[in-house]
């Protein structure tokens, strides 16, 4: 499905091995809100449910 009504609200990548939580991924924060909105659409369109067992 290319376009969905549903939305991705937040994205965090990778795993945090630390005692304190991951606060800021500097890599992504360099990009602004427009990029985030576009990426939310792309991620939403790529998500798919796992095949039924």
């Amino acid at each position, binding site marked *: 499905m290319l376009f969905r*009504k549903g*939305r991705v609200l937040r994205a965090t990548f990778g795993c945090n091995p630390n005692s304190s939580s991951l606060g*800021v991924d500097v890599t992504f924060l360099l990009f602004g809100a427009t990029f985030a909105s576009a990426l939310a659409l792309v991620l939403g369109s790529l998500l798919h449910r796992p095949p039924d067992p």
Partner: protein
Amino acid sequence: MKLEVVRARAERFGGIVEVARPRALLHVDREMMRELGQPPSALWDSPAPADAPLVAPTEVHLVLSRRCAAGCTGCYVDATPQGPALSLEQARLVLDELAAMGVFHVALGGGEALELDYLFEVAAHARSVGITPNLTTSGLGLGAPQAARCRVFGQINVSVDGVGEGYRSARGFDGFAHAERALRLLRAVKQEVGVNCVVSRSSFDGLEEVARLVRTLRLNELELLRFKPVGRGARLDQELTPDQARRIYPLARRLMLRHRIRVKLDCSFAPMVFWHRPSARAAAFWGVQGCVAGDVLAAVAPEGDLLGCSFAGPAEADARVPGAIRAAWPGGFSSFRGFVRSAPEPCKSCEYLRLCRGGCRAVAAAHGAFSAPDPGCPRVQEWTARSAAEQKADTFALPVVRG
């Protein structure tokens, strides 16, 4: 290209889905959950309150022990060679409960978790119940056979607070060669290997060298962790200076661009980032948040205490008792969760309050007031200085002469 959902759990706003490649957690709305074929949830029957905590943490720090032979001068858990530890059976019980709650990741640490002969059994159990185990280690004593077994983990970070003499100065012993060897051994068997670097007043100037090491060894990330005056590190003279606090975010960006490495700042650095006024919408999307204790994050201490965070806060339950974590989660952690609602100035009027949440509670507690704004925040420092200046001006105001 498709992103296959490997796990999902319902939340009031919709849900959180985990994808394995690339490894990510995505918050999605209710409509997307339905479109992904997730079963309807009773949580969706009423509107989602804006400030409700998650129905379970997404990550839990499992402090497996306070046992470590290294004796680092600033150890925040005050680890010793004979310190207490969670047993294998206790760790399994905790993991079972976390899995039932829908927790996605655990961070295994200590102490030195590799000193426990059942560490890999704990990690295998986490995998078997659907939780990704991640590890922080000093790397001391890690050999090739042990490194090969580390494939069971997701992300592994080795603590390197400086290169060469910088390491000795920060940790109190000369362990850099061991840490570097461990990084090479681990990198030879897996890609998700990085460096944890505690940023203190004295290690700040050595960050460039640490970043260079991350690039040279082709590691996948550099995580910069703010020094917290807790445990054996409970002294205030290693906190960042006001100037360093303002420079840390631009420095992290520079290191990322110069060395082409991924750089992360831990949650306690949020006030230092928001002072530079990044886009709040972008920050919210990328999950940039301050204190998420008792919301995104929880911790379990070796003595069984369930905490909002490994560094601070009261024990909410004995996590070793079956059902205790689940019972404590919905109504507990008020000391963390209540900050935004009752925030004092200057947090109250800060546009980033809902993201920053007042900065680090552990640092505030170390300065004597758990629920006060983070004293390391540049905005707080400016406000405090302005208030003091105004008070002084009032004191020395000339009397008004009438007539």
